[in-house]
C-alpha cells in the first residue's frame, strides 16, 4: 500500500443549473490538482449541477452525464469524484457522486438519507440510494468511500462503507449557513466539525469533509472543508465563505497507529440485529 495518498479538496462555488460553467471549473481544479501531484480529487455534493435546483432537478441529468463523460474522457492519472444529479432509471433521479479513476468510471454512490425538512426538499426530487450500492473504490491501493451530507448525520452510512473496507470516508456536503448570532462559529459550522471528528474516530479512518461555498437563492454555503485524522484531529481547514483548494497528504502510518489504539476492530453484529427489529 502506498505510504501516502495526496488528496485535493475543491471547495467550489457551483452555479445553479449551469453545468457548462461548472464543468469548466471542475477542469480548472483538475489541472490544478495535476500540478500538485494529487492522487484523489474530491468535489462537494452536486458540484456539477448545483444544489437547490428545485424543478431543474428533472431537466439537468443529461447535461450532467455529458459533463461526467468529459471528465472520464480526460483519462487523468488520479481518482476524481464529482457530484451530480443522475437518472438512475428512466425518470428516476438520484443525488450521486461518481468515481472516475484513471479515466475509468468505476461507479456511483447515491445519497441514502434525503433531507426534506426546513429548506431541504430532496425527497421530493430524488430516490434514495441503495445500501448494496454503497461501495468502496480502490485507487493506488487505498480504499476510498463516499457518503453525502445528510448521510453523515446518521452513524450507519459511514459505518457501512468503513466496514466494507474504506480507509478514507469522504463527506460531500452542501451545508448552508444559519444563525449568525453570538460570536465565532455558527451552529452548522460547530455541528459539522463535531460530526466529522466523530465519524473519523468511531471508524478509525480519515474523514475528508468537502463543502460547497457561495450563494444559491437565499442560501449561502459556508465552505470550511476539512480533513480529520483517524485520531480525530482536524489536520487541515479550508477558508470560510470563499472558494479554496486544499492539498493534504494522508499517511498510512497514522491510520495504522489509530487502529492499534482503538476498539474499531470490535463489531457487535447483535447490536445491528437489534436495530433491525426497531421501527
Amino acid at each position: 500500500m502506498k505510504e501516502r495518498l495526496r488528496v485535493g479538496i475543491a471547495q467550489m462555488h457551483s452555479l445553479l443549473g449551469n453545468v457548462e460553467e461548472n464543468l469548466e471549473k471542475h477542469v480548472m481544479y483538475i489541472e490544478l490538482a495535476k500540478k500538485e501531484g494529487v492522487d484523489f480529487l474530491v468535489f462537494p455534493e452536486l458540484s456539477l449541477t448545483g444544489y437547490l435546483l428545485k424543478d431543474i432537478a428533472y431537466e439537468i441529468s443529461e447535461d450532467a452525464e455529458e459533463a461526467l463523460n468529459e471528465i472520464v474522457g480526460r483519462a487523468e492519472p488520479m481518482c476524481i469524484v464529482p457530484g451530480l444529479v443522475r437518472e438512475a432509471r428512466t425518470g428516476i433521479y438520484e443525488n450521486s457522486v461518481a468515481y472516475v479513476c484513471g479515466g475509468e468510471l468505476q461507479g456511483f454512490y447515491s445519497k441514502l438519507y434525503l433531507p426534506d425538512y426546513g429548506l431541504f426538499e430532496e425527497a421530493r426530487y430524488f430516490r434514495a440510494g441503495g445500501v448494496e450500492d454503497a461501495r468502496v473504490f480502490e485507487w493506488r491501493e487505498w480504499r476510498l468511500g463516499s457518503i453525502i451530507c445528510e448521510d453523515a448525520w446518521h452513524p450507519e452510512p459511514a459505518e457501512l462503507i468503513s466496514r466494507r473496507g474504506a480507509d478514507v470516508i469522504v463527506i460531500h456536503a452542501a451545508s448552508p449557513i444559519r444563525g449568525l448570532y453570538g460570536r465565532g462559529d455558527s451552529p452548522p459550522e460547530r455541528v459539522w466539525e463535531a460530526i466529522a471528528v466523530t465519524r473519523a474516530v468511531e471508524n478509525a479512518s480519515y474523514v475528508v469533509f468537502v463543502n460547497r461555498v457561495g450563494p444559491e437563492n437565499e442560501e449561502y454555503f459556508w465552505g470550511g472543508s476539512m480533513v480529520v485524522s483517524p485520531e480525530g484531529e482536524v489536520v487541515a481547514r479550508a477558508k470560510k465563505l470563499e472558494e479554496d483548494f486544499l492539498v493534504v497528504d494522508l499517511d498510512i502510518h497514522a491510520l495504522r497507529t489509530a487502529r492499534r489504539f482503538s476498539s474499531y476492530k470490535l463489531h457487535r453484529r447483535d447490536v445491528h440485529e437489534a436495530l433491525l427489529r426497531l421501527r
Partner: protein
Amino acid sequence: MAGVLPRLNVERVADYLVRRLRWYVREYAGKRAGIVGVSGGVDSAVTAVLTARALGPENTYLYLLPSYSTPPEDIEDALYVVKYTGVPEENWERIDVDPIVEALEAQLGGMTKVERGNATARVRMIILHQRAYRHNGLVIGTGDKSELLIGYFTKYGDGGVDVLPIGGLYKTHVRELAVHLGLPERIAYKPSSPRLWPGQTAEGELGVGYTVIDQILYLRFEKMLREPEIAERLGIRLETVEKVIGLVKRSQHKRLPPEVFHVGMRDLGSDWRYPREWF
C-alpha cells in the same frame, strides 16, 4: 435591551452581507452599481455603507429624497452618511419629492394622509429605479426583517426594490451592525419612522416598539413558541403578541408575488418551482 434576542455576530455578518451583495449585483444580475435611497435612518445608513463596501464608493449612488415631512436632522444625518461612505460628489443627489407628489394630486385630486404617504413612497421608488437604469445598477432595498415580517412598508413603494441585503436582520440587529460599521449612535439608535407624515413614528403607529416586536418575532418564528408562551416569557400582554403576529399574517400578500389563478397544467405559483438563479 435585546432581552431574549441573541446578539448579532456583527463581524461575520458584515463580511457575509458584503460578499453576498457583491456577488448578487455583479455576478447574478450582471450590473455595475448599487442605488440606495438614504433617509437619515439606521436601515438606509447601514445599507449604504454595506453597498459602498461591496461595490466600491465609485459604484454606489445615494439619493436623498426628502418631503415636507422630513425633519431637518434627518437630512443632516443623510448627508453624514453620504460623507461617511465616501461616494464621489457626482454619485449623490438631493431630489425633493413634494413637487412630484403635488403634480399627482393635481391630476388625481386631493389625497388623504395615508394615500399621500404611500404615493410619496412610490414616487421615491420610481426615482430610484430610473437612476438605477441610468447607472446600470440595482435598487438596493433598505427593509429590515422586522418591517418585512410585520408588513410595515409600502407595497411597490419602499417594498419595490431588487434585493434586500438586511432583510435577515431585525431592527435591533441593524442597530448593532450600525455601531459595528462605525455609524454614530444618534443614527444607530434613532427612533424608527417612515416619515410619511409629520410626527409619524413606528412605535406611535404600531403601539409597540421594535425592541419588543423583535423578541416576539424571534420567539414565534425562530423558536416556534406559541403566543401565550411568548407573552409569559416576555412578561407582556397576550394581546400585544397577538397584534404583532396578526400583522405578520395579514401582510403575507405584501411579501409574495401576486396570486395567479391556476388554469393550465402548470402555472405560476405552487407548482412553478424554479429557483431564482436560473442560468
